[in-house]
């Protein structure tokens, strides 16, 4: 458990203690009248003045807190317990329990809450003890609905199924597994209900349906002060202030508790610094479509800045596929996001240059970058389902992509879309133009994404794990399509993947990344046949090969970007590490024709 929210706890405890200690605080009698001094202002004897019957306002405020708070807390607690029980039982057991629990609550929801409260108070008669069940009834549906929705989400989680596999009974799963996981929203609901109950109690008392005069309550005080508002406006202020302060403290308390019971560390984004002055990049090689030089990305975290991508340089030539391969945390996706200018808010490029046909993408304004994206530079992502707009037809989305960069009549754009669908191998393209994304399979959607990507004749196509979500027979089709397009249009294809076999199938050259750096690069066939970096070699040994030896894992884990080792970043896991490797950070050095490796021992036996 994390730190408890001590400030709101102390504030809430103070309010409760003051209210509980009211009889012993030596306050004036809250109901004894002093009519000659009615509406008197603050004085030494009456700190907050006297009300319309000359009663001490300070005493009434504190005695009123007893009534208002106990009603609110009791009502919210009652609603929380009953509502959560109904919601959890209904959501977990389903069937008849669900119908009984949820439908009865739905009936309650049909009444406006104030009307419902009025109805019950009228039937049972006013008074603090009636108020508790009345308010509980009003806030019951909220708790049931929140709990029910939480259970529906939680019950489909694998960890709930894991408990079933272990043979746990239903009550155990509900109490020990599901309840803690819906605790956060319930606490928020509790704070809302409690705050609202204080207000509604005041409202009902104000209407004469809650606490019976002369017993003090904040609502009664507000009601009475309203009548004399013009003569003594301060009388209205005190109960309202007390009400506001109490509600704020309750909200802060519940928020704090919710965070405290959540074992996950909270992420607090720090303010974004102004984009640092960029170091000028080196002159680009004229032939490369994409020339990336010395890219370094920084992300602010609560533990200080981290650099998920450091000094990454690579070139992609026309008609060539360069694959960036690496495991999670290697920085391969951050690299592609930096090139396309789509880095998330907390991340920024601190040095380097990325030239697309001579234009440095990292120094372009967002407007010019937007013009390039989808035109000269196009992207295909892993999840085609979330990249397409679910409410628009496929044909319209492709036509839209064309018109955004090349204004033309709608009909012409639609016929271009038809030709594109045909090109990417979608059967019956005329009919598919009118289909919605959900009517297509994952492989078809990825083909549509590719059609959109090539719609404006890009020079560079960045494909980030485009086949990872696809089945192997569909993956083979999509890889073939990408290879064909690259050949036929002279595309430069930057292919980002974690899969070595896919690299072997599609890439002309490969760059292997590890913990934010390129550790080895070169022609794919040569790198895979004769890896020069120990990480590349270990990675190849860990990939299962059908007719090869059993795969070997790499001991240890990728170092977190917050704690990179001082020397070679792979040294702690490297089977060839020498003492010097833990002190000297190796540079990426040339290692034969078109190859480079970041290891000081690559040419030592």
């Amino acid at each position: 458990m994390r730190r408890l929210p001590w400030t709101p706890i102390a504030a809430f405890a103070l309010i409760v203690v003051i209210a509980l200690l009211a009889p012993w605080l030596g306050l004036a009698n809250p109901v004894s009248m002093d009519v000659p001094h009615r509406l008197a202002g603050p004085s030494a004897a009456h700190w907050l003045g006297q009300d319309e019957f000359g009663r001490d306002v300070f005493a009434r405020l504190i005695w009123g807190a007893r009534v208002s708070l106990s009603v609110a807390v009791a009502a919210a607690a009652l609603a929380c317990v009953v509502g959560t029980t109904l919601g959890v039982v209904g959501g977990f057991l389903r069937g008849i329990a669900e119908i009984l629990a949820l439908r009865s609550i739905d009936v309650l929801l049909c009444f406006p809450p104030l009307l419902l409260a009025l109805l019950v108070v009228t039937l049972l008669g006013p008074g603090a003890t009636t108020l508790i069940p009345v308010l509980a009834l009003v806030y019951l549906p909220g708790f049931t609905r929140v709990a029910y929705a939480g259970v529906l989400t939680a019950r489909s989680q694998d960890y709930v199924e894991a408990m079933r596999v272990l043979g746990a009974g239903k009550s155990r799963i509900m109490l020990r597994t599901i309840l803690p996981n819906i605790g956060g929203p319930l606490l928020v609901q509790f704070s809302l209900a409690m705050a609202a109950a204080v207000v509604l109690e005041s409202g009902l008392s104000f209407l004469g349906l809650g606490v019976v005069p002369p017993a003090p309550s904040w609502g009664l005080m507000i009601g009475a002060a309203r009548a004399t508002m013009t003569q003594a406006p301060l009388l209205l202020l005190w109960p309202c202030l007390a009400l506001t302060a109490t509600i704020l403290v309750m909200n802060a308390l519940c928020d704090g508790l919710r965070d405290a019971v959540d074992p996950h560390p909270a992420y607090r984004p720090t303010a974004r610094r102004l984009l640092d002055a960029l170091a000028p990049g080196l002159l680009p090689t004229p032939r490369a479509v994409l020339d990336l030089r010395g890219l370094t990305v920084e992300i602010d975290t609560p533990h200080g800045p981290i650099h998920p991508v450091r000094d990454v340089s690579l070139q992609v030539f026309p008609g060539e596929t360069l694959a960036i391969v690496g495991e999670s945390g290697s920085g391969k996706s951050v690299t592609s996001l930096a090139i396309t200018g789509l880095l998330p808010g907390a991340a920024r490029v601190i040095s380097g240059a990325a030239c697309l046909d001579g234009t440095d993408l990292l120094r372009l304004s967002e407007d010019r970058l937007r013009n390039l994206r989808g035109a000269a530079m196009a992207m295909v992502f892993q999840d085609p389902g979330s990249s397409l707009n679910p409410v628009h037809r496929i044909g319209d989305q492709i036509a839209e992509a064309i018109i955004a960069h090349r204004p033309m009549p709608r009909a012409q754009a639609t016929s271009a879309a038809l030709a594109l669908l045909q090109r990417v191998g979608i059967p019956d393209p005329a009919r598919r133009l009118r289909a919605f994304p959900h009517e297509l399979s994952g492989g078809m959607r990825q083909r549509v994404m590719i059609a959109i990507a090539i719609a404006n004749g890009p020079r560079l196509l960045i494909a980030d794990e485009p086949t990872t979500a696809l089945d192997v027979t569909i993956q083979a089709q999509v890889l073939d399509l990408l290879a064909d397009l690259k050949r036929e249009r002279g595309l430069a294809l930057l292919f980002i993947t974690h899969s070595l076999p896919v690299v072997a199938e599609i890439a002309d050259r490969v760059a292997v990344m590890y913990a934010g750096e390129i550790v080895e690069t070169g022609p794919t066939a040569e790198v895979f046949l004769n890896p020069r970096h120990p990480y590349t070699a270990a990675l190849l040994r860990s990939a299962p090969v059908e007719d090869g030896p059993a795969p070997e894992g790499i001991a240890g884990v990728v170092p977190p970007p917050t704690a990179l080792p001082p020397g070679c970043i792979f040294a702690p896991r490297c089977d060839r590490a020498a003492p010097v490797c833990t002190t000297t950070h190796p540079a990426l050095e040339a290692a034969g024709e078109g190859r480079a490796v970041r290891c000081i021992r690559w040419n030592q036996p």
Partner: protein
Amino acid sequence: MSALITATGLTKHFPAGGFLGRGRAVQAVTDVSLTVARGETLGLVGESGSGKSTVGRLLLGLLPPSAGHVTFDGADLATARAGDLRTLRRRMQLVFQDPYGSLDPRRSVGAQIGDALSIHALLPRADRAPRVAALLEQVGLAPDHAARYPHQFSGGQRQRIGIARALASGPDFLVADEPVSALDVSVQAQVLALLADLRARLGLAMLFISHDLPVVRHLADRVAVMYLGRIMEEGPVAAVFARPRHPYTQALLSAAPSLHPERRRTRILLQGEPPSPANPPSGCVFRTRCPLASSDCAHAAPPLQGAGHRVACFKAE
């Protein structure tokens, strides 16, 4: 080897969804029969929607079958009494695919591993902590990790925790549902080595569900290939991988990308996509994508037949 778990004619149709149930029932699994012997690993491969995960859950009794039955160590799951079912539960466990979703984020790792011990009252309370520590060590984690929460671990470590949780009740049979497909390749190999080691040391029988053929080749003794809810081919891994007899298995093996493209079998690129399990083709379900299909294939579903190496195809030589 004696059969530990046997499924006979297992069928699972999920009821129709849609407004007023007017959609078609999804035929997730149709007429699947298989056995897993003690200490044996059966690999179950297939693409998404082939029903392989559903078979795993049917074997564990987590889903009631629409037809057919499952026998575990001689006891029929469908007719077992509640008390017996609890004991059976203890003896069969599941390892999940998603190392993030399968652990309760709000409870310590030790508490979750200890659940099986307390649910089945396997050990007195005082002995549970040492047992949890021993389980953590068994899967290559440190005993003091028990007090930590899932988010403090990497994906590979979480998967080890999931395995420790599954082993806590001392099972004889483990269903591993894509246990390594969410992991990085270097971590994948570590977890596979752990599973192979545990299997050998504890004599576990395993149903290893995966879409990754090379992984199955290394871990399984036998392999069953599923397509659209049916088993297309089944046999010893060496035989199936070296001489696949069903055209689907042949296509699947040739489509898998290989580290050595030059050594790969001739690629059979399947056309189109798998049909919907709500509306499977008549006869052989693979015939709409099959390069060998003829009109005979539309009339009847080919039975899975053969000795040792079984195949469901009229055209298999």
